[in-house]
């Protein structure tokens, strides 16, 4: 029981991080129909920026948090402005390769800026870990969970309540029609890119105190986040959350009841099963035709 609870805690902690990263994938796909393979690199930038701003520059945590997210958002906006928008005939595969190129580029930049070593970061708060029925719950896990839910709720409200959010949804449904009714579609794409990059940045900020961060941390997290987004249903915010948590918990249970070496396989077997039996994802409704 004690172990089981520990697996769940561990799974939820990792899962919440996957969820935030998945959210970035999902919201970009939802508004532009694009899969950004550089998403993991935004996680890396977020994590390392936080460490630099918080520990290096000694900014207070909230400021460092905001700064790190802002840096990733700017990186995302630059990716859209200088690379994605420059493509004249945007065939999806060409755009995907551009994001792959961007991920290599960003990793290179990360290596130059932060070096090849790993960096650690303290937790957001100094509380001692909680002991629940013998299982340990880290305060950082609570932070991650709360902030993840906050991000999803924020996104939900943005899409439902704000004019810009609704305009973005309109672009997702039909760029042409949105353009005709006067929505600046180019700006919307730019905004979608920087928002999804910011999600990646938040994921990085959340994970930095939990683990060690280095310039090459992005790919693995990006893949997991992408997997989570697929499981939950691309384009669905709540799907991303469900997918992320499910993936995290499944991995932890895989460690507990199978073998730790097979836990990555477990994630991808789940992905295949979802594809076979429910291709639109657990919560996905949109017919997935692009790419």
């Amino acid at each position, binding site marked *: 029981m004690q172990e089981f609870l520990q697996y769940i805690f561990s799974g939820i902690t990792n899962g919440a991080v996957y969820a935030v990263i998945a959210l970035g994938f999902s919201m970009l796909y939802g508004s532009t129909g694009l899969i950004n393979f550089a998403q993991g690199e935004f996680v890396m930038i977020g994590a390392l920026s936080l460490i630099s701003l918080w520990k290096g520059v000694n900014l207070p945590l909230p400021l460092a948090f905001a700064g790190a997210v802002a840096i990733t958002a700017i990186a995302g906006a630059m990716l859209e402005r200088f690379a994605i928008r420059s493509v004249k005939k945007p065939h999806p595969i060409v755009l*995907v390769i551009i994001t*792959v190129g961007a991920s290599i*580029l960003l990793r*290179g930049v990360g290596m130059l800026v932060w070096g090849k070593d790993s960096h650690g970061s303290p937790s957001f708060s100094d509380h001692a870990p909680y002991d629940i029925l013998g299982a340990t719950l880290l305060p950082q896990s609570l932070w991650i969970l709360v902030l993840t839910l906050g991000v999803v709720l924020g996104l939900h409200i943005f899409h439902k309540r704000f004019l810009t959010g609704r305009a973005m949804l309109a672009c997702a449904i039909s760029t042409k029609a949105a353009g005709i009714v006067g929505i600046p579609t180019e700006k919307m794409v730019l905004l979608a890119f920087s928002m999804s990059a910011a999600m990646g940045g938040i994921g990085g900020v959340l994970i930095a105190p939990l683990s060690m961060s280095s310039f090459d941390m992005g790919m693995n997290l990006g893949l997991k986040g992408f997997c989570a987004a697929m499981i939950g249903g691309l384009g669905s915010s709540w799907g991303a959350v469900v997918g992320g948590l499910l993936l995290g918990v499944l991995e932890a249970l895989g460690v507990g009841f199978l073998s730790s070496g097979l836990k990555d*396989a477990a994630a*991808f077997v789940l992905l295949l099963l979802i594809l076979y039996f429910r*291709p639109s994802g657990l919560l996905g409704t949109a017919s*997935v035709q692009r*790419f």
Partner: protein
Amino acid sequence: MRYLILMAGVLAAGFGLSSPYQIQLLTFIGINSLLALGLNMLMGYAGQISLGHAAFFGLGAYVTGVLTAHFHWSPWLALPVAILLTAAAAFLIALPLLELSGFYLGMGTLGFGMIGYVVFRQWSSLTGGDSGLVGIPSLELGPLSFADAKNYLFLVWAVALLCIFLCDRLIHSRIGRALRAIHDSERAASSMGIDTGRLKVHIFVLSAVMAAIAGFLYAHLVSFISPGSFDFLVSIRIVTMVVIGGMASVWGALLGASVMTILPETLTVFTEYEMIVYGLIMITIMIVIPQGLFRGILDIYERARFRTGSIPAGPQA
């Protein structure tokens, strides 16, 4: 004709080159060409992406590696086994996914690729696990020993040329037309009586088999394999070769494979900046000539081939 030129080129290079480094590089280009060619058939003609081709590459390499190193089979016996196993795996992956349109195959292959990677690492009693599988013998055919780097170069390129030739033939046949039709309009292709799902499964299997052959050649060339050579990044690299070279063109695959093999070798002079330069080059190529290097170069030729002058270049690949 083009084959003759290429063949002459390879022969000249083979006999002209004395540096084992250049010979080895050319051999790797041949192996990568096989990989890119197979994936090009899938991406360029069936309009599907595979993000797990490294797993098929690895399957080919590991099957022959395990059979020859552990069980002392003849490589020539192991080759058909590798091909059959890879074909079966590809068939099982593709069957449920290719019925659906969209990018499901890409996602499925991504999952398959990761699972393959985990299996290569975890089944250590057979695969040698993370530290790799040693003792894969070199190839021999009667009195001809392919332990000699030059002979191996010729072998790899003979296989690559044969595959290019066969694929070229296939593309210009009934099946190839059907594939291009699927790529242009799946609805219309289906209304022409083309079994789109089945054909896509077939081309996927073909593409996986070519990757397996490349894996076979790689394993016996390096005589050592480890999971790191078949991870997700390798899958991405193969996709990149196809796109950079140009989709829907066997020659584009060749060009893409060459560029992507030589580029990292030449970029080492940038040391710390290597990744940045590499990423920039990829992005720039895609922005400037999204149809790929080969198409980009042949644009003018294409314009001349169709009578009217104002044709947008290349198929919308």
